């Protein structure tokens, strides 16, 4: 029953994606080209990595609003560790990722140990981590990275953007974990009924702690890719990216109340958003019009999905 409704939402979404791709390719002959589509893959990697981790978090019934700030903090630290602390760039990037992961771990501790609802905990750390990024950077940007660093964000491997490989790998690994491992099933159990999961002896707190830590890790890896793609660091990097990621996840059929959702869905949602953004801008619609449309698509997709599966879902 649950499986059938999952398939339904994703099939519906995949159909929508095909239609959107078709319509957009009619609007501009520059849209449906290999070069353009690969470039879009480059642009959606950062949101994609965050959205994958966010799928797990939302599937447990939680949320992580602080990912954009963790991205900003890790980006700033990559630059600061490298330029000001004089570390070799790989160590600087690893250090920044370590701090970002620690930031995610801190979220997890606040949520599991102190029982602060995830929305509030990450709302508070959203302000805190962004504040740290601003304080550390003092509004200075770091530029002038060595040429090899741009391999990550601006070059191709085997004809495909480097970071797109990372996204694809992450998506495959994450969908296997979520769908086929005990640990992945625990995520759904916690999201469906946390109390029952605890009584069933599942490691609810440990699972959550690991997920928020993973979310921080994903955001900081995205940060390094972001820095490599745009060749600079600024403290406002990634602000608002949490909403993009949540939109992709929810559009992809993950229930905001937890217990339901797949990585495939999230990826389709992500592609749909990116296709709309790019296709419409090629068709001459301004970026702001596109933002409007994405908002409308989000509401309509959930509305349609609700109508199709009136029964069996929680209210």
């Amino acid at each position, binding site marked *: 029953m649950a499986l059938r409704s999952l398939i339904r939402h994703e099939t519906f979404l995949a159909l929508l994606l095909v239609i959107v791709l078709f319509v957009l390719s009619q609007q501009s002959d520059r849209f449906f080209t290999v070069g353009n589509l690969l470039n879009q893959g480059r642009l959606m990697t950062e949101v994609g990595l965050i959205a994958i981790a966010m799928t797990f978090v939302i599937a447990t019934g939680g949320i992580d609003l602080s990912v954009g700030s963790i991205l900003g903090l890790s980006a700033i630290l990559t630059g600061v560790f490298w330029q000001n602390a004089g570390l070799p760039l790989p160590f600087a990037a690893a250090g920044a990722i370590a701090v970002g992961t620690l930031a995610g771990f801190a979220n997890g501790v606040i949520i599991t140990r102190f029982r602060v609802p995830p*929305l509030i905990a990450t709302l508070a750390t959203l*302000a805190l981590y962004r504040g740290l990024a601003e304080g550390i950077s003092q509004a200075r940007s770091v530029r002038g990275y060595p040429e090899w660093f741009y391999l990550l964000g601006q070059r191709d491997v085997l004809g495909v953007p480097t970071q797109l490989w990372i996204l694809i790998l992450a998506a495959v690994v994450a969908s296997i974990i979520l769908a086929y491992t005990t640990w992945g099933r625990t995520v759904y159990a916690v999201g469906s*009924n946390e109390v029952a999961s605890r009584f069933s002896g599942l490691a609810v707190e440990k699972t959550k702690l690991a997920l928020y830590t993973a979310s921080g890790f994903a955001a900081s890896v995205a940060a390094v890719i972001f820095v490599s793609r745009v060749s600079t660091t600024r403290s406002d990097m990634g602000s608002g990216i949490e909403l993009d990621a949540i939109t992709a996840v929810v559009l992809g059929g993950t229930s905001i109340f937890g217990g339901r959702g797949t990585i495939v869905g999230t990826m389709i949602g992500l592609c749909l958003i990116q296709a709309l953004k790019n296709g419409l801008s090629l068709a001459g619609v301004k970026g*702001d019009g596109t933002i409007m449309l994405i908002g409308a698509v989000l509401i309509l997709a959930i509305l349609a999905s609700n109508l199709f599966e009136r029964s069996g879902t929680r209210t």
Partner: protein
Amino acid sequence: MTAMVDLPPVRSRTGLQRQGFIRRLFSEYGQEIIVLSAILVLFVVVTLINPRFISANNLTTIFSGNAYIAVAAIGMAMIIVTGHIDVSVGALIGVLATISGTLAVAGYPIWFAWLAPVVVGMAINAVIGILVAYARIPSIVVTLGALSILRGGLISVTGGTWITDLPPDFLIAQKRLLGFPVPLLVMVALTVLAALWMRYTAFGRSLYAIGGNAEAALATGIPIARRTVAVFAIHGAFAGLATILFATQLQVIQSTVPPNLELTVITAAVIGGVSILGGTGTVIGSTLATILFATIGSALIFVNVSAYWLRAVIGLLILATVLADMLRRRGRG
């Protein structure tokens, strides 16, 4: 939302009648008292360091300049008490400010330029409420969509231009009444009215019932769907009132609002003691929390902390308040 009801302990406002007055005050308004104490301590400490902190000018900045956030937080508190959330309020205020300013510049009567944001705010949020209540889409999803629509729509229509040449009579936020800045008076009046309404009317009480346990509320005959639409519309009206204070602060209206305004508003409601799980909290708390943020921001400038560290300090204080609140609740339950 039913799955969330049985999670952490929630402050109870009943069954405490036989305890002493002080005890009752603390158990009912614990968070409000904590926030108020924090404001007072900050005022005393910062004034000792730098007496100019309590100059009339600075007090006006703190209380009057942030009144619009407090007014928006009143509506937000009602939404959260009912068990919902609205992440689109910042974008809504931006849209309403542009509507109001455009009407004022176009020569419509001033009262009409003030009324329009309230009415349009109610209408837009009523649509959101209908989607939440009748189409059963979670409020965070609807308002996330609304955020994109409103923000994108505003910039598409205005193209990012500012509205200038506002008529002087329109700028009510710059006026004074009985020696007090108008925004301060509006903030206090609306807070008191909303607090009394939520505590003593059947409608107001029903919001706590819905947020506390929707099924039980339905069983007692509360029309949940209609109340949800209504509370979203009321929230829209408060956003409209907040817009009037926001849009008339300066001589120009920008097509942008302060970044993360919706998060500031939500945080104010939550730090003021409104439980994100629904069912508890007061608008007195949300207003006090707004003043606390404003005081912190101003205090940092007066004790010479670099402006770049401002958000980090505010974030740390928010976190400390939240943790203190959780520990306090756990200590009792």
